[in-house]
């Protein structure tokens, strides 16, 4: 292995079983099979099994952070477990150089009856720190966890946030070569998130990180590479933004993305200037500061004679960028038949990037949601202006004075 590749995964597969009884029995078979030294290279699926991870290969070097994204059940956590050496792949190989640290389930092994201080020693030992190392880092761990005087109270009196902080504080002092992170940031408050991030960024200088998350903005911000998994296979690999784009583009929008009372139906969404035979998944392209016009065909229950529309624009990380509520003056008339509305955003000042559009239909006073349609279409803004913020304002700059000139 060349000296800076810390993780190498080659053709790795893992199969799981859908039913418990069979799964247990297969477990016995696998153990006996390994005891007898059976060759595992030509494994196939047994009844009720599926590939949780299927023929996955990648490499990660020192200083790189690989973001693993994908829908639930895509195999992300299974892959992480194999990287951590907890379970073995059924096919393929995994090579890892150096000490592996995992921020997966923080505080695993905490004993509720023992004090925080006692648990620090146990947890540190489980994670592979020696007693001497722990002695040295004890104060730093307690500071990091911000547990204060509770450190000598039994862990069962801690809030869930405190337990996580304590677990994270111990894990953060491991100084591993390979750091595996799985959704830990789902818990904890804002300050804790920022702390985790700072830590990751500092750690990245001389470690390799594999980061599993559904929080796409965090993946985009932290990772240097991305990998999208779907049904156990690699669906896409590239830069984090590319991978997130591909993940979002291929994400089947589930029915739940449509909410509301069901009295409104969105039949179609078209952008003005869009060719009729566009490929299904492509974004509509628009230049910076062009007018964006979108036509909505809808059917709304007849009792709502003058419904009100609401549109929102999200960036590709699903963060809200802007919104608009139809003015009371722009009255729509509805009689229960199909209606078509054009909404125009003049001189759209969004930055380069991919955005998605959500539509809401409200009753006349806006108090009731008749239909809410998330991410109905996406569009991409192109242009050659600099900057990465979602909105690039138009502004006038004029000089209104200068000090030290001869006129003063």
């Amino acid at each position: 292995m060349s000296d800076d590749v810390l993780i190498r995964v080659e053709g790795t597969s893992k199969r799981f079983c859908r039913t418990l009884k069979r799964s247990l029995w297969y477990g016995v078979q696998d153990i006996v099979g390994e005891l007898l030294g059976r060759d595992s290279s030509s494994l196939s699926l047994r009844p009720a099994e599926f590939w949780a991870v299927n023929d996955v290969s990648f490499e990660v070097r020192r200083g790189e952070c690989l973001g693993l994204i994908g829908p639930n059940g895509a195999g992300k956590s299974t892959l992480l477990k194999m990287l951590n050496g907890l379970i073995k792949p059924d096919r393929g190989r995994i090579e890892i150089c150096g000490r592996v640290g995992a921020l997966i389930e923080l505080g695993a092994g905490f004993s509720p009856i023992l004090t925080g201080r006692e648990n620090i020693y146990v947890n540190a030992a489980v994670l592979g720190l020696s007693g001497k190392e722990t002695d040295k880092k004890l104060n730093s761990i307690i500071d990091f966890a911000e547990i204060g005087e509770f450190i000598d109270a039994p862990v069962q009196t801690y809030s869930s946030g405190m337990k996580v902080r304590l677990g994270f504080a111990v894990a953060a002092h491991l100084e591993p070569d390979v750091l595996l992170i799985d959704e830990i940031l789902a818990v904890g408050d804002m300050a804790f998130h920022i702390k985790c991030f700072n830590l990751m960024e500092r750690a990245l200088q001389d470690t390799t990180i594999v980061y599993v998350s559904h929080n796409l903005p965090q993946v985009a911000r932290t990772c240097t590479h991305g990998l999208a998994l779907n049904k156990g296979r690699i669906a896409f690999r590239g830069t984090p933004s590319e991978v997130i784009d591909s993940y979002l583009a291929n994400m089947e929008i589930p029915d739940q993305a449509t909410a509301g009372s069901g009295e409104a139906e969105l039949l179609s969404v078209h952008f003005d200037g869009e060719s009729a035979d566009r490929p299904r998944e492509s974004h509509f392209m628009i230049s910076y500061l062009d007018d964006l016009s979108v036509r909505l065909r809808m059917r709304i229950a007849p009792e709502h004679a003058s419904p009100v529309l609401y549109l929102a624009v999200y960036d590709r990380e699903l963060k809200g960028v802007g919104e608009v509520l139809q003015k009371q003056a722009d009255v729509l008339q509805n009689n229960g038949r199909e209606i078509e509305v054009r909404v125009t955003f003049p001189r759209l000042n969004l930055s380069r990037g991919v955005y998605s559009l959500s539509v809401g239909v409200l009753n006349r006073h806006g108090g009731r949601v008749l239909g809410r349609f998330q991410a109905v279409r996406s569009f991409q803004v192109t242009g050659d202006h600099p900057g990465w913020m979602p909105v690039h304002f138009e502004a006038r700059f004029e000089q209104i004075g200068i000090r030290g000139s001869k006129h003063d």
Partner: protein
Amino acid sequence: MLGDLSASRELAWRLFIRNVSAQYRQTALGYVWAFVPPLAMTLVWVLLRSQQVFEVGDTEIPYGAYVMVGTLLWQVFVDALNSPLKLVTSSKQMLARINFPREALILAGLGEVLFNFIVRLVLLVGVFAWFRIPLHATILLAPVGVLALIGLGLMVGLFLTPIGILFQDVQYGIATFTYLWFFLTPVVYPPPTDGPVAMITHWNPVSPLLLATRDWCTIGASTHTGSFIAVSAVTFVSILGAWLLYRIAMPHLIARIAA
């Protein structure tokens, strides 16, 4: 394997300290609970015998002392037998999330078994004083006997652990079977010389270990020393096999129980 064993010493120590210090922390009486079960057990048997509910052959030492020593030795065997499965089961969460040397659990369990035995030794001292049992030089062999009993229990427990993690039948089975095994082992009665039970106690691997150790503690030389050596030798070779099985099985178990 040996590397992992030595790497796990420190962790095993921490886990041992954790388990032992948490063991009685939520009790008011604390270590009293270490003494109550064997004391109660001994009293029951002494009472039953004095009422002639059953009849057993004569013992060379007072029956109370005979039962107490037997019970303590039997208990350390059963503790060792239950230890691996108990610890692995209670550490499932940790096993499924953290990669640490798996031997640490076994070592920590052994430590706990030994610790609890040493605590209960206080009872033994009391019994020896109460019945004024003379001490023999062979009592120095007793630790070897205790280790052999722990070894045998551990070996059986380790072999059962992989299958026991997958199928809870094993846990239920162990509970029932150890109860039966207790009566088929000369713990509270001297080994019978004829009849079907005599055959069973003769081939029961716990018998020679327990009998020899009790003899060394209480009467000096033992007639069971030969079979003691044979059983111990087989035990310590088999432990290696059980350990290997445990190591190989662990990733498969984790994949099945907590994936």
